[in-house]
């Protein structure tokens, strides 16, 4: 996973709420067995519409997506995160995220930032007024800055540290193998096992 400390980029305003992961990438696009190539399916139902924000030339190289409340609800498909990353997004900002999507993003290295509805509206207005508005996301300082505005955001220390260091969660957990071994010895014998099949 790449380290994330600061990012300076432009953004796409997505003035929609309840963008579930089926909208981010429909099920028919989930059949790949790799982690790449999902950008084709990103928002596929909307990509035929020339007015759709991602189709507008002025937002072409954006790396930040600014969405409405309840972004990434529904299905647990991490493909939604990969589709956004494969397309080129590094950060998604919204007033609230689906829990599983948010967790998946943290694991895959896509930074999700929760700002208030008010702050998101202000950001939308600023981007719509100036599509090449430079936005700075500073994970170390926990701020989103543009023009003369700077808004703080909350992220737990642990997730922030992992993203800033680009750390692999599995590697970290495997350092705790002794604890896992000890825990397993305390599990009740009546807990089920899948093997052998009965």
């Amino acid at each position, binding site marked *: 996973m790449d380290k994330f400390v600061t990012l300076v980029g432009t953004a796409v305003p997505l003035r929609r709420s309840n963008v579930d992961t089926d909208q981010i990438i429909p099920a028919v696009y989930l059949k790949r067995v790799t982690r790449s190539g999902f950008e084709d399916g990103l928002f596929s139902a909307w990509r035929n519409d020339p007015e759709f924000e991602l189709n507008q030339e002025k937002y072409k190289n954006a790396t930040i997506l600014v969405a409405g409340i309840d972004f990434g609800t529904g299905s647990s498909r991490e493909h939604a995160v990969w589709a956004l990353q494969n397309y080129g997004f590094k950060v998604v900002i919204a007033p609230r995220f689906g829990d599983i999507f948010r967790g*998946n993003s943290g694991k895959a290295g896509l930074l999700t930032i929760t700002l208030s509805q008010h702050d998101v509206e202000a950001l939308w207005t600023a981007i719509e007024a100036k599509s090449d508005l430079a936005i700075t996301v500073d994970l170390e300082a926990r701020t989103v800055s543009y023009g003369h505005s700077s808004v703080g955001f909350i992220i737990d220390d642990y997730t922030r540290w992992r993203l800033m260091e680009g750390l692999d969660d599995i590697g970290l957990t495997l350092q705790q193998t002794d604890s896992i071994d000890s825990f397993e010895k305390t599990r009740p*014998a009546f*807990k089920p096992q899948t093997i052998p099949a009965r």
Partner: protein
Amino acid sequence: MGKTLAEKIWQEHVVRSAAGEPDLVYIDLHLIHEVTSPQAFDGLRLAGRPVRRPDLTIATEDHNTPTQNIDQPIADPVSKLQVDTLRANCAEFGVRIHSLGDIDQGIVHVVGPQLGLTQPGMTIICGDSHTSTHGAFGALAFGVGTSEVEHVLATQTLPLIRPKMMAVNVEGELAPGVTSKDVILAIIAKIGTGGGVGYIVEYRGSAIRAMTMESRLTICNMSIEAGARAGLIAPDETTFAYIKGKPHAPQDWDAAVAYWKTLTTDADAKFDHEVTLRAEEIAPFVTWGTNPAQGAPLSGNVPDPASITDAEERGAAERALVYMGLEAGAPLKKIAVDTVFLGSCTNGRIEDLRSAAAILDGKKIASTLRMLVVPGSARVRLQAEAEGLDKIFIDAGAEWRNAGCSMCLGMNPDQLAVGERSASTSNRNFEGRQGKGGRTHLVSPLVAAATALRGTLSSPADL
């Protein structure tokens, strides 16, 4: 202060706890299917890691699998590759798998309980958001993404930040014709698609305790539709009776039951949030929009977005009506559908099929629509056939299919065409969920059957 049921299960599974870090939580059962696992197995291979506990892991094929001609190779080459990849991965890593055609194949959330692998007090994960289903047994069960699937394969644990606790109380007695599906749709409409974000929901109250195990599974299944990663119900005699005799039921039954009986929320435990519904006030419920919270009693009308005060919700409702092709104020019972889908991890179990068959028995579905009946598992299908339900469905004019996720998400050929409208017992009415341009109304099995007979959204009382 006392503890909630979810707090007790959580605490019993903490492997390691350190200030400023997530708890490392042990996972008792890992369910796998073909869509969210290939990249996880790939990750293991790249790092040279084994599956730590194949004996706590089980796979089934469900999302992609066809529901017709299952004796032939899967026609869609991309679906076939994904299923073949699962088979190869399970063989390589020593994971038990139930493939298409196997008697224990089926939707992962139907297979776990029917094998008796889902038991109270367990932690259960799967790369599928409807893993919350298993919470009906008093287990802590939740959906995860592929990175977490890989994490559990490698370590049998997950680093997790403990969610907050919410109680949803449903008190009183449900009216005849009102099912647990109506209850959960009413709950989601009340708290919204984001109302449960950050919470584990415990469903409580006399109406929940009176429900059968399969009705409870329907409730917990849709917790994620309210934003809650997990939902659960305290185990009781109904739970124990359901597990007894299942293939993987505990051999030391008394020890297990003694433990299971401790799995209740303490009287003095505090929830961070509490919601109460009166069972008597819940009527057959359907969705009219494009998220599961956009629902209303079937006897009502399509709402007028202008009457919604919240600007975000109003905009969402306006967009939903355009997508759904509906007029504000139109009676819901006047909406004609093209397809009725009975199945899914929400409503694809034997009780669901029985209740729908009882309504269809000796009657014919409307000539204006098709009805797909897709059992949740191969064993549910066999049980239904043993009871003659297949004959009732076929005689009524419905299609009797093989087990899988099918039209719930349209990864296999079972899809809606552009503009087609369904009454569906599944869990999501998202835009394009059942096929690009398809329009979905979520309903109970009883409403699905009555709708199939009348051609328009209907409850059994309308027959």
